[in-house]
């Protein structure tokens, strides 16, 4: 049983043990390259649950790049799960489930990508799908900003300047991913923006009700109703 399909509301995800092809350090981040196996890369903004060796729960990660035969993730080591993932090396293999959730709606007129920190993770794959639209990226430090090399044409700011300082008055169709304060700021400036949110997730496929966010006064499961939400009220 190398690969199993799970129907999730009519869509299909697969789970497979994938070999690690490489793990490259970019500033404080790690670019983890896995073989693709029989998994679909899915729509940009969708995510995968990655087994974090030694930890009881898998970790949700956006697909960053989809090279032929591969799946690439951008990881920031912030705790035990991401540290375990960042220490993977060729020769290791991990179980991966996906693609999961709702990605970005690609039917947009004048796309503008906005990313902050490790939140830029889904943007390279998204940029590819949209034909390299303009992109604005913000980082905590020059060292963090090294990862902007994944989006060579993007405009980049480093704190204390904020990525929202660069937003034009009429930003068009914003597609954004980043820390919550950044998404809140983007939302205030660009109504109708597509925002990719985060929440701690145990399952990623609607089984646990752990990942809820308030949408319209009700708790919705971000893993199946998101992670990309349009203009969360």
């Amino acid at each position, binding site marked *: 049983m190398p690969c199993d399909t799970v129907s999730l509301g009519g869509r299909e995800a697969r789970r497979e043990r994938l070999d690690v092809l490489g793990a490259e350090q970019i500033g404080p981040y790690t670019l983890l390259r896995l073989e693709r196996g029989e998994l679909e890369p899915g729509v940009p903004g969708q995510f995968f649950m990655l087994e974090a060796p030694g930890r009881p729960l898998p970790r949700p990660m956006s697909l960053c790049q989809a090279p032929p035969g591969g799946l690439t993730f951008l990881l920031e080591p912030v705790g035990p799960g991401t540290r375990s993932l960042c220490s993977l090396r060729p020769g290791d293999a991990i179980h991966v489930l996906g693609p999961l959730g709702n990605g970005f709606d690609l039917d947009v007129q004048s796309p503008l990508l906005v990313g902050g920190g490790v939140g830029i993770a889904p943007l390279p794959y998204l940029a590819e799908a949209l034909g390299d639209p303009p992109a604005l990226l913000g980082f905590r430090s020059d060292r963090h900003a090294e990862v902007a090399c994944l989006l060579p044409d993007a405009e980049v700011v480093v704190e204390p300047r904020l990525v929202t300082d660069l937003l034009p008055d009429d930003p068009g169709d914003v597609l954004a991913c980043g820390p919550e304060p950044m998404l809140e700021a983007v939302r205030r400036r660009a109504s109708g923006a597509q925002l990719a949110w985060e929440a701690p997730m145990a399952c990623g496929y609607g089984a646990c009700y752990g990942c809820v966010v308030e949408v319209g006064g009700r*708790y919705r499961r971000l893993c199946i109703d998101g992670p990309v939400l349009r203009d969360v009220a």
Partner: protein
Amino acid sequence: MRIPLLNASGCLDALTAPTVASQLDAFVTKTVTPLPREGNPPPRIAESDAGMLNSIGLQNPGIDAFVHDTLPRIAELAVPIWVSVGGFAASDYSEVCERLDDEPSVDVVELNLSCPNVEEAAESVTELVAAARAVTTKPLYAKLSPATWDVAESARAVEAAGADGLSLVNTIRGLTLDAGTRRPSLGRGVGGYSGPALRPIALACVHACAEAVAVPIVGMGGVTSADHVLDLVAVGASGVALGTILFSDPWAPRRIRAELDGSTTATGVPSERRIHDFVPETTPRRRSSAK
């Protein structure tokens, strides 16, 4: 003997993962309460080194929406259905059980008497079981907490009050702190602790209850492999439920079934007691749809 595999309540949504639910010998719903509940504020999930915490707090659509919307859709999967019932007073349990008694697609009612994530009912577990027993002819399973000095005593009491079986165990209260702030990781503070760390505790509870009561037991707590299933059966479980493992491995029921089928290991003494609805020869299954 084929060991029935179920999911643990709250650890699988048959509607978002129907192909997973179909692999089970019975699907157990998330706990249903009389009124809709939004549950606890996020974050609701945290991890420890050997388990996880949750503080979902029984988010569910309430019995009305459950019976009208959810149940008919689950029934389409043609898997036996166990409905988990919760509440905050004996009247809540009897209200929900009464409603379910009319639903032919419900095979078993599991009484969640032990959710660590909500205020408890004032009545004792015995009174809650008795209240449910008075209003339903469905097989009743009582789900007990491991957080008790003498679980066998509770087991005897709920058996006497009319429970047809036991589900053992629910989560136990736990707390983790955020590494940076040393504030509780969960929005609610404490949560229910599940996963591998719970396994020895669950085994001790099943072991103690199997010696104390005659009714069948569904064992659960940290099961991740066929080996763990066989351990629970060896101490007296008649069926085994998979919980936290489903989050990392949705295909665990099929994997573990294959491991069990391939296992040449002696299973200990398989329990003589059979859990409900896995014995079609003695208890004809009612499979008429509720739609």
